[in-house]
């Protein structure tokens, strides 16, 4: 099943790589990825889509929340 995740990220050196690297290291393929500045220049919004079952998605969301630069992870299509 296709899922969309919306991630708020602090603009730190290497922060994007750490998110992308986490998904790769845990066996997820990112299908689409958009990164854009928010009203706060210190924060970016990262929107990505990926496929996976509910358990896999729950796990990758939890793991993403452990990244120090990550402010928030939302899964709007699943709300």
């Amino acid at each position, binding site marked *: 099943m296709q899922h969309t995740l919306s991630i708020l990220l*602090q603009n730190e*050196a290497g922060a994007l*790589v750490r998110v992308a*690297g*986490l998904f790769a290291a845990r066996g997820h393929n990112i299908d689409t990825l958009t990164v854009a500045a928010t009203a706060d220049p210190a924060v970016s919004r990262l929107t990505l889509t990926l496929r996976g079952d509910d358990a896999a998605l729950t796990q990758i969301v939890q793991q993403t*929340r452990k990244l*120090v630069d*990550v*402010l928030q992870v939302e899964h709007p299509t699943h709300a």
Partner: protein
Amino acid sequence: MPLLKSSSAADAEPGISRHPLTGTSLSGADVVVQVLADEGVDVLFGYSGGAILPVYDAVFRHNAEHIKPDGSEPMPLIVPANEQGAGFMAAGYARASGKVGVAVVTSGPGATNMVTPVRDSTADSIPLVVICGQVATQAIGSDAFQEAPISNIMGSCAKHVFLVTDASQLEATMRTAFTIARSGRPGPVVVDIPKDIQNTTMTFKGEGELALPGYRARLRAIEQASLADEDCKLFFEALSRAKRPLIYAGGGVVAGGAAAALKAFVDAFGLPVTTTLMGIGGYDTTDALALHMLGMHGTAYANYAVEDCDFLLALGARFDDRVAGVPTQFAPRAKFVAHIDIDPAEINKVKQAHWHHIGPLDRALQRLTRFGKTHDYSLSLSDWHAHVAALKRDHAMNYDRDSALIQPYAVLEEINRHAQGRAIVSTGVGQHQMWAAQYLDFCAPRHLLTSGSMGTMGFGLPAAIGAQFARRDALVIDIDGDASIRMNLGELETVTTYGLPLKIVVLNNVGDGMVRQWQKLFFKGRFASSDKSLHRKDFVRAAEADGFAWARRLEQRDELAATIAEFLAFDGPAFLEVMIDPDAGVYPMVGPGANYAQMITGDFIPARTAPKAADAAATDMF
């Protein structure tokens, strides 16, 4: 660097404690060292090089200016043979002390040699701060000499990595690194500091950390989480329905400082306890209710208790593949699985819990103990206790006691007789690691130091060195294998350089014993590159060459007891190689893809049911 002296501003504002160096101009390197001093760091492990020289010079000056009354340095810098050694020394220090271990290395190869200890420490939740020199900011990305993209490399294996490109952030970043390393689920934090930042003059603030709003908000929520009455009630109602409840305790008991709370809980309600490899020492292995280790090479009685339990309480444990190889068949009779962990990502990751709590383990256990006592939940577990005692008696660890060859288990039993669960023991990885976990007792946490998740051969010797710096007066023993110790054999010299009274045991079975065990089972005994009988290494002469005054090889079993006694009593570094039965195996063994009921117990531990023949190479499990 200026000497510490209290500032007049601090004197003028009673009640507000200010850092005595607040407002002072310092170099970035001095700031790094001052924050280390403020964090209480009392030893550093590292190897120098071009890009870290300013920090090394600052450490040198700090030590020269703050020499202690006994003439010792406040922050000695211990130099390994290889940066990987420094990383495992810092990890051994952290594992033995519970404090943050600190390693300081140079850019490029210095930093990449730290990758293995950093990943190892993430996997075992060990708090480290690793400071790496980096080429100057203007040279980053130019393929400069000794340049490596450490932020990228470490980003995928550390808890967090900082690349400091703004000198004004250095002080706060250093302090924050310690906070991240030790908070929540602990882990290693890498701070990559370009050389020009180390040389920049800046004003020392003496306080302040990075904001990290996301991390801190999540951390606060977890640290403040408490069990509501309703949660406690659900827990105890399920527990009081259980007839065979079992605690499965992991490394979180050790990391979370929850051993005393666990003991109090067990004293109150009487649940038997089995621990993971990382949890060993979290519950006194000599206690009547202790079942020692469970899992792939767990004791038969622990694994049978897991098979039989109807209620499983997982504490700071994560159902990893060495424990729950087949998660659906793990604890198959457990009608209720309760799970407490500090990491939300571990709940329901492998095994669905019927009840869970995310928060500090010691507080959760104290709360449950109080609630259960207050509400008079008493369990009648005498049948279960009798059952567990019978399992321990009928399926006790055992081996070929009549063999003419020296059995590794006998060596460990002899060491155990002297150590009595009080020695700090590090290990390499493989058969000797499992034998040490099975045959040694551990009465308290932070006494077994072993690479649990990553399984890094070469861990034992440097980890023991780091542990001896954490516990200068303790008996520290490295139980190693001939193949494992080779990986970081250069650190033998580090032991004698610093005059550490380490005791190093090499159980020599002339090869990679665990690999051979798997090759026997699954590859028809084709010992592809695991046999080392053509290797020419003379370990005793190697140890002597590195300055060991006591270095012996034991080949006769009738000399075992006397040799071990003399070895452990030696006042100084000692090295003992024991030529063991090369065919000695690690039993019990729950084969890859098998469940606990299919456990092989070997020829000397009675099994409950006859094991089925191993289905060779039928699995991708490892």
